[in-house]
């Protein structure tokens, strides 16, 4: 005999909030990120000194590093919107650093995130300040989760830069000390990414004691952010005692290990 399904129903179950994966993107938006990487353009004959380098100014329909990074982040949003687990679990925050560090997008889940802001490149590279701000925001978010009784996975920090830090040395050293402590205590997952040939990989190595920094191949931001989306989804579904195996093979398509 088929037994009735009315013994208890969905209304009888408690509603616990989804376990969150807090992810902070800490992005270099210094002037060098406006470097032209393709498109239809002409040299104007003018030059300028910015971000510690001399630049040839161009005119036309161009693709830039920052433009490609923005597209990549948009592809991350699109991926997370289509993943039924990560949709409710992932929370993204964006910190940019140039002359100063700024949070341009506080933690939001993908449901509430509009399309990616237009990023603009200007100023120098206050990396230490950016990383410290990102770490402060991650700590604050974890505290909010605890106060609201929301479970969370280990937070993620993605640092992307195309140059070397030019901000306050004390701030940089403080950032390095903090990331090292957190990573060694297994309280943070960090992905340091170098963009282009001028990225200072040695600083990125100092920020990441356990994971070798990766250099983005060409401008494969979209591939990287798609991999990031899949990894967030994998993490969202992990159970207690389960080691989270990220698809590091997937990284090789867009980056190289030093």
């Amino acid at each position, binding site marked *: 005999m*088929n*037994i009735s399904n009315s*013994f208890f129903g969905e209304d009888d179950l*408690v509603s*616990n909030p989804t376990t969150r994966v807090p992810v902070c993107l800490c992005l270099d938006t210094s002037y060098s990120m406006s470097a032209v990487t393709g498109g239809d353009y002409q040299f104007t004959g003018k030059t300028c000194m910015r971000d510690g380098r001399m630049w040839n100014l161009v005119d036309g329909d161009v693709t830039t590093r920052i433009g490609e990074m923005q597209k990549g982040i948009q592809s991350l949003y699109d991926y997370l919107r289509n993943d039924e687990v990560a949709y409710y679990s992932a929370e993204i925050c964006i910190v940019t650093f140039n002359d100063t560090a700024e949070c341009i997008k506080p933690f939001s889940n993908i449901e509430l995130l509009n399309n990616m802001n237009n990023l603009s490149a200007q100023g120098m590279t206050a990396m230490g300040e950016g990383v410290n701000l990102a770490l402060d925001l991650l700590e604050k978010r974890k505290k909010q989760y605890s106060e609201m009784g929301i479970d969370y996975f280990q937070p993620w920090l993605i640092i992307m830069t195309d140059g070397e830090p030019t901000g306050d040395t004390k701030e940089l050293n403080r950032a390095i000390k903090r990331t090292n402590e957190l990573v060694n205590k297994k*309280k943070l997952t960090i992905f340091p990414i170098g963009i282009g040939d001028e990225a200072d990989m040695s600083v990125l190595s100092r920020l990441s004691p356990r994971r070798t920094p990766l250099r983005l191949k060409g401008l494969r931001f979209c591939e990287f952010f798609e991999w990031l989306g899949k990894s967030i989804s994998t993490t969202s579904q992990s159970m*207690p*005692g389960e080691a989270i195996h990220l698809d590091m093979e997937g990284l090789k398509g867009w980056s190289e290990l030093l």
Partner: protein
Amino acid sequence: MWTAIQYAMQGRSHIHDNTPCQDKTYAITTNDTTVVALADGAGSAVQSHLGADNATKTICSYLAGNFDLLYNTPDGRIVKQELLSVVLDSLKELAQKSSCALHDLASTLLVVAIHESRYIILHIGDGVIGYTDNDILRVASTPENGEFANQTFFTTSADSLNSMKLFKGEIGSKDSFILMSDGTESGFYNKREKRLASFLLDVIRSFRIGKTDIVECLFQQNFNSLFPKITGDDCSIVFLIKDTSYFSFNSLCFDDKVSFLKLSPKATPRQIKKYDMVLNSLQTPHSLRDLSRTIHLREKYTYRILVRLEELKYVYKASNKYYTILKP
């Protein structure tokens, strides 16, 4: 007398990747001691389903045979060390036989042991242990997670002894215990408010007044249809309920029947008789028409009685037939 009802369901993520269910439950009654245990194998520990199975059987057997000795040991740390070492010794033997490392057999562990009027509770890791006392649902032991959601403590963890919780005391008016794994927590335990879903009281009551096999079947069917929607994890639960064998609807006196059926105090013997006839007939499933004919009552009046009994969760309907969970 205590009755154990236990259930474990393989999660959809494990069905998908062909991993066996890592949640195991066990119950034993010997020497007037009843012990129930539940263990949730660690996600990536390759043989954790074997470890969970071994841990539940070992701890139940040991507690059943040594309840008084353990209960009367004043220093709880000694009891914790003793219980943990019994479990670990058994796991080490299993590790050797299975040619795997000890940590491959890691699991959480939740245990309730009852002897006469006393209890011992043990808890390592996540999952929840609750109980009822005078119809109030309470939490005896909350989940122990690390800072992050996918962290907890296991039998084989370095700090399992420090994280272990151990309770003992007099049963008093406690009349049921509930053990659940973290998968089941997702629907039955409010993490923010640290309380169990209130309808569990109705479930326990149904086990107390109903035929165990039918109530169990009802529970499992609903569990199987609802839980895969809210979690991909394995889910398991154990109910340990006092005195389930003594209830019988027919043996209730008139006033008790009025109260049991939540009728007005002005209810007449004739009304009660109709309920008697319906409930006795529904010991076997009947359609509305067949039931009406059997008890010689018009369908619309029979239907009203059935609606009331369905609201009280004494009668259910399936495949167009009604049946009762109540013992005759």
